[in-house]
């Protein structure tokens, strides 16, 4: 267990895991995937280069994101993140406890490990002489810089020791407060000061990694339990809400069936367009009937999905016209069939489709014009250019207007009797979404805390040497040390000025 823990927390492992995920994504986006290409594409590929295809298929490189090795990789990342979050939190809680305790002479000495490097502050004419000292903080790679400020002079001399130190402390606090530093309350009354800035920044890493962990868990949950279905619904048609009624569905490994538990009736579908033929909006007027038979009206659009009984219904961008024909065949009952044609992106182009007429040998090749007089998306003067084939022989070719009949050269006839809109609706049930939202929020917050609020600490020690008071200063930051060193220098200078002012004010 310890070995596993060490492996997952190892810095090298973390880098390798990120690299592995990145390379997998690169493979997934460059190698054709089963989810994005047709089966024919892969058949052709296999026929063209069987050995290459064999390797790709064996390594599941044609289905990277659902492959076993990718899922194992993601599980490893999740474990590593979980361990990392746990140990980072533990360390930070310990640190907080330490910071709450009063700093002793010993702990301060521990902090001031290295002396003699870093920027010294030398006062000019203000009675303050600087001493330089570099400070290397404890903990990984956090380097601080230090400077000593030696108070000298008449302003401090001649007062009682405690009063002098308290006065000094007040001045010091003022300098740090202006720069956004706050004093740790537990040590305020001592001669040791610990100032902190952006304390929340320390938690950035934990929050960011926790966010990522939640996102991964949500994705794994979705892979296991998500239910997603797509239906094409004609106007005045009802989706019965049964698992077998989906045109297409994608279910998680353990999702079972997808029965939304309610029926959906499409009252009306209304597309609207901009003047340059682009789609402006799609709107479906739906009646949803629950299992008890209660009906509710909804308006659905791409910008406003509907939530009903834990299932979200989305307006798909697929829509078009459903054109209905009745086939009159000698000696048989009339057959009514609707053909769903995808809408054209340009209004001067017809809606095209080639489909079998069910239960017959007829194949219909259609070019549907919503308006034969002038280009339009709206069916104001509709007609269809129809070619009917049967076993390779052409039975009819010509234009059929709405409500007209086309004879098929063999006593059969087709009547164009119905036009209405159809639209696609997507149903999604994913209980993991709150987890996704939490994960996203935490990752964003964490990234902000890490990079925008770097944690900074400045330590001060006030010592008396006869009539002199010496203030030693050290600091560290968990990010951008070079920039912190500049800020540290400015803080030192400000402190120098403030103490100089103190001196001048007190000279009496």
């Amino acid at each position, binding site marked *: 267990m310890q070995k596993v823990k060490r492996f997952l927390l190892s810095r090298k492992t973390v880098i390798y895991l990120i690299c592995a995920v990145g390379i997998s994504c690169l493979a997934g986006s460059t190698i054709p*995937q089963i989810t994005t290409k047709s089966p024919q594409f892969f058949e052709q590929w296999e026929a063209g280069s069987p050995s290459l295809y064999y390797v790709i298929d064996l390594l599941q490189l044609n289905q990277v994101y659902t492959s076993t090795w990718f899922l194992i990789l993601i599980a490893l990342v999740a474990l590593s993140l979980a361990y990392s979050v746990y140990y980072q939190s533990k360390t930070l809680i310990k640190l907080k406890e330490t910071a709450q305790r009063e700093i002793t002479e010993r702990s301060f000495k521990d902090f001031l490990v290295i002396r003699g490097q870093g920027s010294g502050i030398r006062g000019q004419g203000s009675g303050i002489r600087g001493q330089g000292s570099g400070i290397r903080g404890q903990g990984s790679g956090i380097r601080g810089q230090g400077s000593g400020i030696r108070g000298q002079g008449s302003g401090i001399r001649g007062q009682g020791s405690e009063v002098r130190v308290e006065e000094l402390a007040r001045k010091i606090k003022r300098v740090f407060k202006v720069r956004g530093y706050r004093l740790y309350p537990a040590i305020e009354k001592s001669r040791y000061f610990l100032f902190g800035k952006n304390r929340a920044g320390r938690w950035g890493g934990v929050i960011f990694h926790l966010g990522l962990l939640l996102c991964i868990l949500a994705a794994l949950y979705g892979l296991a339990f998500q239910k997603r279905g797509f239906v094409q619904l004609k106007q005045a048609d009802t989706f019965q809400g049964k698992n077998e009624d989906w045109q297409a569905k994608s279910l998680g490994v353990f999702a079972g069936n997808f029965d939304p538990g309610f029926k959906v009736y499409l009252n009306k579908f209304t597309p609207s367009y901009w*003047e340059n033929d682009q789609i402006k909006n799609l709107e479906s007027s739906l009646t949803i009937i629950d299992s008890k038979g209660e009906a509710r009206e909804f308006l659905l659009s791409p910008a406003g999905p509907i939530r009903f009984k834990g299932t979200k219904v989305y307006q798909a961008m697929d829509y078009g016209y459903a054109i209905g024909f009745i086939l009159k065949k000698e000696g048989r009952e009339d057959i009514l069939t609707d053909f769903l044609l995808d809408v054209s992106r340009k209004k001067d182009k017809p809606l095209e489709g080639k489909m079998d007429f069910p239960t017959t040998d007829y194949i219909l090749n259609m070019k549907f014009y919503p308006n034969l007089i002038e280009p339009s998306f709206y069916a104001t003067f509709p007609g269809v250019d129809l070619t009917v084939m049967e076993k390779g022989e052409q039975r009819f070719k010509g234009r059929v207007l709405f409500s007209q009949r086309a004879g098929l050269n063999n006593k059969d006839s087709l009547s164009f009797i119905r036009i209405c809109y159809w639209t696609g609706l997507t149903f999604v049930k994913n209980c993991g979404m709150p987890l996704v939202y939490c994960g996203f929020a935490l990752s964003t917050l964490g990234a902000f805390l890490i990079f925008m609020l770097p944690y900074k600490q400045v330590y001060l020690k006030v010592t008396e040497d006869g009539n002199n008071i010496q203030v030693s200063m050290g600091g560290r930051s968990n990010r951008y040390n070079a920039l912190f060193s500049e800020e540290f220098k400015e803080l030192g200078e400000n402190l120098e000025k403030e103490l100089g002012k103190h001196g001048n004010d007190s000279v009496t």
Partner: protein
Amino acid sequence: METIQLLKYEVIFHWIALFFYLFSTIFFVRHVVFKNEKSLNVGLWLALIGLIPHTIALGIRWYAVGHGPYLQQMESFSSTVWVSMVIFLVCVYKVPRLKSLGFVILPCCLAMMILGIISNPWVSDQLAQTLDHGRLEKGIYARSGVAKVPPTFCGIWFVIHITFTIVAVGAILISLSTAIFYLLKKKKGENEFYNKLPSLEALDAYSYKYAGFGFISWTIMVVSGSLWAEQSWGRYWGWDPIETWSLITLLLFGIYLHLRRFFKWQGEKAAWFIVVCIAFAIATLFIIPFVMTTVHSQYFL
């Protein structure tokens, strides 16, 4: 005023801004190549003045087409340049020693501006007509229409997604330029010109800081894009090429930040690594939509 007339003015102001940026670039190059101190401030002022016609051009565009400058190629390029310039100028205002970064940022902005103007449907229409001696059919809507907002382009997540995409580009450009100046300063050694720049450590830290800022913006871009997709299509992640490449870029930034933190990658190594990260970011935003079939390419018209 008619839309066509407004779009004409918009193009004129874009050209004016482009010329300011062009001259600004020349002065920045002169400053760095010939070590000319005076050129630095001239270049900076030209960039600042160029921002005025640029702002007017974007304002006119916004008013004329009825949506923000994010839908068409030229709108995306133009608004990206505008935001990058603002970030650069704010950065210079806060840290005046970073003025020289204009040497990298201005040429990048200029290139994007040129691409934007060339891809402006109105300009390409006019160019085609000029080349074809007016034989092509006239009319701005005839072949080069203004893109209108599709029904899914709405909601707060969409706005955040677009905004942070542009901000991310601005941030990583600053990071790139500090990294390049780090490499230049390191190569040329200590001399009077480079001493006016921040120290090597500070340049490295600025590069790190702006890479961090870029990382945050990129994260917000990915997150808000996912939430927008969830609201529009009912799925927050679909392994669309742009989504995947955004993730790859994010992971690459993640590697960079971990290497800096854990393996003490600083200085030259880090500077080269950030250049690679930025190359991936640029490929994700400006190359992938054109070479791969993605849901983004139909919107990045």
